[in-house]
């Protein structure tokens, strides 16, 4: 049992322990959940210190037979791509637990149990190296989130949670079909094995099959990201979810989609990925611009942040499908940035909600005068979110735009609108909520941060600055992993590039810019 197994096992153990606790021991259950999640976080830091950058292949590998026939393995391991996403999951779970301390007052036992189950699933998704195992974790994540929204959410929670579940389910059953199909070809679920068989040509997929398989995986991930026009579940889910649910959903769960694109879609189906890149990028750019425009007119803070997520995740998809090193690095960095800054936004909006029981912007005004510290932290987060230099999002967005420009300059031009628009809607919201005349109800209800709330928010703000000032802590391992993925796509692209396909792609892209680099 290595460190990675521990990081997966601790939340699972916490889930089981929380389940058997007597219902009445509310405070003890809270402490227990916090304890388990903190231990998981500390252990996961061991992954960072033990990670050898530059070493090829997976690290912290654990590989056991789970089911003998058909052979399904518990095969986990991490590379630079998974490393930080796992840390993101283990880092945010204690915060989500801590921020719910007062917010959640009924069915406490189930609430914390579900948060730990969610953490288990998330860490597993980012660590799984067997397609069956990956699918298992992928679906395990769905169940706790379904309950978190459905039980502890706001008024329209049931509609939102069912929509969330069904959207994800439709995508994932098609992915399951594709996974089983790959198994029938490769006779294994082991991802490394499948990759090498695909690479060496032992599984020869014809053009149509590869495209269909790519689309099956892509749809599942695109729904999760969510990519325009599949994003409609997201605002509903976010608005209705409790704060902890919104934070986990925005910060980590959406990354399951983008992670899947980088981890599975690109390396397994490089040709199809490149061929389909043009329209995917167009959808991503539409998502960036439309998400931002829609965010601008939202009267509800959570909905505004939710649409801003659609816009930000568009950048990630754009970076991924630019097929450039900088673009991909930026995309992965942006996944982490979005996790930190949007997580912080939901957290702070949640604090406001706890005080005033409203998410409508019009119910606020002049918060800065009664809660200066809350306002300052919110301001830093807002600035991070709109991509101010020295804060984290700037680095990611810059790299993505650079990568997009390398691939096709017009992509970068259109995407840059998103950056401008994000400044508009975020600052406008900030102005309406925190400045202006002090609303009567705000004066009576809104107080400044409590120590517990400080403890939730400060780590996030510190990371925003850290990730903005010194990206070298995080980026080298990511680049390393991305380089391998790109190497694979370019190699396989060349190998499979027969004249017929090349002609098709050329006409579709209008000059074949994707391959020009």
């Amino acid at each position, binding site marked *: 049992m290595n460190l990675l197994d521990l990081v997966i096992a601790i939340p699972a153990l916490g889930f089981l322990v929380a389940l058997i606790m007597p219902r009445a021991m509310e405070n003890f259950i809270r402490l227990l959940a916090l304890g388990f999640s903190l231990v998981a976080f500390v252990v996961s830091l061991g992954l960072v210190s033990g990670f050898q950058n530059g070493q090829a292949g997976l690290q912290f590998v654990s590989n056991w037979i789970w089911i003998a026939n058909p052979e399904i393995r518990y095969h986990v391991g991490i590379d630079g791509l998974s490393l930080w996403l796992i840390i993101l999951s283990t880092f945010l779970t204690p915060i989500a637990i801590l921020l719910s301390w007062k917010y959640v007052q009924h069915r406490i036992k189930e609430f914390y149990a579900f948060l730990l189950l969610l953490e288990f699933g998330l860490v597993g998704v980012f660590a799984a190296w067997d397609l069956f195992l990956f*699918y298992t974790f992928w679906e395990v994540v769905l169940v706790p989130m379904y309950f978190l929204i459905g039980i502890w959410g706001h008024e329209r929670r049931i509609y939102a949670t069912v929509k969330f579940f069904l959207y994800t389910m439709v995508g994932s059953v*098609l992915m399951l079909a594709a996974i089983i199909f790959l198994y029938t070809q490769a006779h294994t679920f082991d991802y490394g094995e499948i990759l090498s068989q695909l690479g060496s040509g032992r599984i020869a997929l014809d053009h149509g099959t590869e495209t269909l398989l790519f689309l099956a995986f892509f749809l599942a991930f695109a729904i999760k990201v969510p990519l325009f026009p599949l994003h409609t579940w997201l605002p509903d889910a976010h608005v209705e979810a409790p704060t902890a649910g919104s934070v986990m959903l925005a910060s980590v769960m959406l990354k399951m989609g983008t992670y899947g694109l980088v981890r599975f879609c690109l390396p397994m189906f490089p040709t199809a990925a490149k061929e389909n890149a043009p329209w995917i990028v167009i959808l991503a750019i539409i998502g960036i611009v439309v998400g931002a425009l829609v965010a601008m007119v939202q009267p509800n803070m959570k909905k505004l942040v939710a649409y801003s997520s659609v816009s930000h995740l568009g950048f990630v998809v754009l970076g991924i499908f630019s097929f450039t090193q900088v673009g991909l690095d930026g995309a992965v960095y942006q996944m982490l940035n979005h996790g930190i800054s949007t997580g912080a936004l939901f957290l702070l909006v949640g604090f406001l909600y706890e005080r005033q029981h409203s998410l409508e912007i019009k119910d606020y005004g002049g918060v800065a005068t009664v809660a200066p510290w809350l306002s300052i932290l919110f301001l830093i987060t807002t600035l991070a979110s709109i991509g101010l230099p020295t804060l984290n999002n700037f680095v990611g967005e810059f790299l993505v735009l650079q990568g997009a420009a390398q691939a096709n300059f017009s992509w970068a031009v259109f995407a840059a609108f998103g950056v401008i628009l994000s400044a508009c809607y975020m600052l406008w919201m900030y102005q309406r909520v925190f400045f202006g005349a002090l609303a009567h109800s705000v004066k009576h209800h809104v107080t400044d941060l409590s120590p517990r709330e400080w403890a939730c928010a400060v780590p996030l703000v510190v990371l925003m600055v850290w990730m903005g000032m010194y990206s070298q802590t995080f980026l080298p391992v990511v680049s390393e992993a991305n380089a391998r993925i790109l190497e694979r796509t370019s190699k396989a692209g060349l190998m499979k590039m027969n004249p017929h396909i090349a002609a098709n792609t050329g006409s579709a892209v209008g000059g074949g810019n994707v391959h020009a680099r």
Partner: protein
Amino acid sequence: MLGNFAPSSVELLRFSPELVLTAAGSLLMMLDPLFGKKSPKLFGHISVAAFLLAIFASVQANAVSGRAFSNLLIVDGFATYFRILVLTIGVFAVLSSYLYLDREAADTPEYHSLLLFSVAGQCLMVAANDLIMIFLGLEISSIASYVLAGYLRNDRRNNESALKYFLLGSFATGFLLYGVSIIYGVTGTTKLDEIRTALAVPGASTAVVAVAAALMLVGLGFKVSAAPFQVWAPDVYQGAPAPVSAFMATAPKAAAFAIFLRIFVTDFGKIGSAWEPLIWISALLSMTIGNFAALTQTNIKRMLAYSSIAHAGYLLVAIAARSEIGTAAAMFYLAAYALMNIGAFAVVIHIAGKGERHLQITDLAGLGQRQPLTAALLTVFVLSLIGVPLTGGFFGKFYIFRSALESHLVWLAVLGLLNSAVAAYYYLRLLVVMYMYEPGEAADSLEPLSPGLGLALVLPAIGTFVLGILPGSVLSFATVGAALIK
């Protein structure tokens, strides 16, 4: 001459599960005048003991596997798998009946002996090597089930259910018999292995055999409630006493699928390309009709009935695959399906109350707050019915669709998987009502979970997890069994 017909002791051992059940059933009837009114629970205890003993006997019989009674029976891994399955269902059926019979103040002795006879018939079916034996087993099982469906004879819904079940059931059996007679006409035998040999001869009249296969398909389609022969199922399941519905949705169906597999794989395997399209269509229709009709149901029993039609569709996908993996997948799925359905019905029995007053889905409201354990167990079954990983339902579905893809039934697999996403919608409604609604009248009048029902909930839940997390041993049992019927 007589000596040739006298069964040897090994043959009797191979037949011992049926003997145990029949003896126990008869014993219950004899004890009725003595203890019928005094200790109604005794009869349940005896039949649980009989089922457990019969499971033990099946294992022993499997150790001396082989044929019995001039090749009328064949006790092999396949038969043993299904015997143990239907016997286990029998145990759960009894466990979930204690409370129900008590609540309705119904006589227990006949109920339990009918249950024993019905399962005896199913054990006979799954071990039969002869079409006449199959017919006998089917009738023993069916007639007992007809009576059970109308067990509360003063209840109008029970009567409707029993009558519909009887009329349509006998009609379907007619089709099956017609098919059997044609086969006998063509081959001159009713033994499955001899039919196979006879049909393997080149020049055997394929067209006539295909007609016979089609007729038998109709008859078996009725028994497993596959579309387009499914119309009886919702009415019958809704009207019958809840524990009987649970039983009917699982045990007779498992046994019918067993003979379905045995007849079609063993005898009609050669003309597989002729019947595969029919099964393909029936599978798709069953999944689609079952799932879409279930979407609009408000009565839980009716919803579970439509869901069981959809599950019959998934099972037909495995049969359409026409491979050993497909057979094994169907076998595994039947076990997973039985556990999750028994469990779900057990919750229905629990909340229904006297006279089955609370059968609406909304009657589950607030169960999560009032009885968290019951709600959690139902959640396990619902997640398994949806097909969420780590449950038996998921692994079964995975295995079925794997067999379909191995046999290049790509579209059937994709349509089936999309169907299971549709199904998620109505299953989720149970969870929504249970956890996200405030408790209503039904939840307020809820009694604490009775021990019998508790066992009928907890054990299937454990089984569901075992099949989902460590499916290895059941899977290899099914795989071995599947390899035997070729």
